[in-house]
C-alpha cells in the first residue's frame, strides 16, 4: 500500500456573494477621506468643497425653496418629454416588431437617425418651437423615442417563435397572439429599454437647460459654476444623482410587479 495523499481543494471563488457592510464602508471611507482632506486644507474649497459644505448648501437650498423650484422645473420637462417619446416609440417599435412592412419602412430611418446626439437638434427645435418649454420637451421626447423604438422591436423579436406557432396551432386570432403572447413576452425587453430611455431623458434635460433656461437643475448647476459657487454646483449634481436613483428605483419596482412571473 502506497502513501495516501489528500486531494488539494481547488474550487471556490468566482461566485459573487452579497456583502452587506462593504458598500456602506466604502462610501463612509471615501467621504471621510474627502472631508479630512478638505478640513486639513489639502483641497481648496473653491475647487472642491467639503462634503459638509455640500450638505449645508443642500440644506439651505431646501429651506429657501430654490431646490424644489429647480427640481420641479426639470421634472416638468422630463415627465412629458419621456411620456411622449415613450408612447410614440412604443407605437412605432411594436408596429415594427409585428409587421414586416412597418419594419422595412421604419428600420432605415430609425437606424439613420438613432446615432444623432439629440441635443444637436435643440437649436433647430428652438427655431421651430421657440426658446420656451416645447423645444426642451421635444428634445427629450426625440431622445427617448429612438432607443424605445429599438428596444420595443428587438423585444418582439426575442419572443420565442415557437410560442407564436403554439398560439396559431390552437387557432388563436392574430389579435390574441399579439395581446396574449407577443406583448407579455416582449415586456421584459420593453421595461429594460425604459431604464435606458430614462437615463437619456435625464441627460438631455440637463443639457437643454444649460443651453437656454432660467430654471431647472441644469441651469442651476451652470449658473453656480459661473459664479464659482462650487458648493451649490455640487449640491445640484448630488440632486441629479438622487433623481437618477429615484427613477431607477421606481422602474425597478414596476419591473418587479409586472414581471413577477420571472
Amino acid at each position, binding site marked *: 500500500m502506497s502513501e495516501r495523499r489528500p486531494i488539494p481543494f481547488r474550487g471556490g471563488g468566482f461566485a459573487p456573494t452579497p456583502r452587506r457592510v462593504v458598500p456602506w464602508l466604502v462610501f463612509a471611507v471615501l467621504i471621510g477621506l474627502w472631508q479630512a482632506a478638505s478640513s486639513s486644507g489639502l483641497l481648496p474649497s473653491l475647487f472642491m468643497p467639503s462634503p459638509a459644505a455640500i450638505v449645508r448648501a443642500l440644506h439651505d437650498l431646501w429651506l429657501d425653496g430654490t431646490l424644489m423650484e429647480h427640481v420641479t422645473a426639470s421634472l416638468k420637462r422630463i415627465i412629458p418629454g419621456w411620456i411622449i417619446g415613450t408612447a410614440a416609440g412604443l407605437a412605432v417599435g411594436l408596429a415594427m416588431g409585428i409587421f414586416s412592412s412597418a419594419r422595412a419602412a421604419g428600420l432605415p430611418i430609425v437606424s439613420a437617425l438613432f446615432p444623432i446626439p439629440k441635443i444637436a437638434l435643440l437649436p433647430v427645435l428652438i427655431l421651430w418651437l421657440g426658446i420656451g418649454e416645447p423645444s426642451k420637451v421635444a428634445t427629450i421626447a426625440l431622445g427617448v423615442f429612438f432607443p424605445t423604438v429599438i428596444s420595443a422591436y428587438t423585444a418582439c423579436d426575442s419572443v*420565442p417563435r*415557437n*410560442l407564436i*406557432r*403554439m*398560439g*396559431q*396551432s*390552437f*387557432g*388563436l*386570432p392574430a389579435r*390574441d397572439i399579439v395581446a*396574449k*403572447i407577443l406583448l*407579455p*413576452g416582449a*415586456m421584459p425587453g420593453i421595461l429594460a429599454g425604459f431604464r435606458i430611455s430614462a437615463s437619456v431623458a435625464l441627460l438631455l434635460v440637463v443639457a437643454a437647460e444649460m443651453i437656454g433656461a432660467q430654471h431647472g437643475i441644469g441651469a442651476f448647476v451652470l449658473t453656480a459654476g459661473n459664479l464659482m459657487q462650487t458648493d451649490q454646483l455640487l449640491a445640484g449634481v448630488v440632486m441629479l444623482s438622487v433623481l437618477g436613483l429615484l427613477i431607477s428605483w421606481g422602474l425597478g419596482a414596476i419591473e418587479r410587479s409586472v414581471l413577477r*412571473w*420571472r
Partner: protein
Amino acid sequence: MPLHIEGVCHSYGPVAALDTIDLDIADGETVALIGPSGCGKSTLLGIIGGLLQPTAGRVSLSGPPPADSLNPFTYVFQDFALLPWRSVSANVALALEHRRLGAAESRERVAAALALTGLTEFAAAYPKQLSGGMRQRVGIARALVVRPAVLLLDEPLSALDAQTRELLMEDLLVIWAREKSTRVYVTHNLEEAARLADRVVVLSRRPGRIREVLRIDVPVAERSRPEHTALLIEVHRKLWAMIRDEAATAEREIQDV
C-alpha cells in the same frame, strides 16, 4: 378521425425535405414517425397540423368531427411552449379563451384536463416552478382541453431525462386509454415508438420517404405485460436495423445551413 396524407412533398428552398409521402391513418390509431435526424418528420407533422404549407400534395380528414372538438389538430411540443407568465390552469385555458365557451364549461374542461394529467394540485403554479415532466403534462393538458380529433406529438418526451420519460410514457398510455383521438407521434426514440404506437412509419434520410411501415399487433395497453417483453425487444431490433445505416450516414453529414 381518419387522416389522409396524399403525395406530400416539401422543400426548404433548394433542399428537399420530404418526397411524396402517402399515408392513411385510421380513426383512433396511433402512428409513430421515426427516422434519422433531418428526415423531415417534424416537417411532416407541421404540414399535417396546418403550420407549414406543403410544396405539393395535401392532407385531409374524412368523416364527421367529434361533436365537442374545438380544434381538430392540436400539438404537443418538444419544448412544451408554455407561457411563463401564465399559471398552469391559465396556460391550459389559453386554448379555450377565444372559443366563446361559457365560463362554467371552460372551467369544467380545464379541470377535467388537469385531472387527466395529474395536475389538479398544481393549477396555480407557474411553469418555472415545475419540473420538465410536469411542464410537459401541462402541454398535454392544454392539447387535450380542446378535445382534438388528431393529436400531433412532436418529440414530446425528448427534452426530458430518462426517468421522467419513463413516467410520462406510462401516463400517456393511461391517457391513450381514456381519450380516443387519432395520434401522430414523432420521435427518434425507438422505445417510445415500440411502446406507444399501433404502427411505426420509418422515414428515410433526407429527402424523407416512407421506407417501411411496421404494424405492432399487440394492443398498446397490453405491451407492458411481461409476456410481451420479447416482442418489444424484437420490434426495437427491427426498427434499429431499418434505420441504423441511415442514421449513421445522416450523423456524418455536414449541414449546409
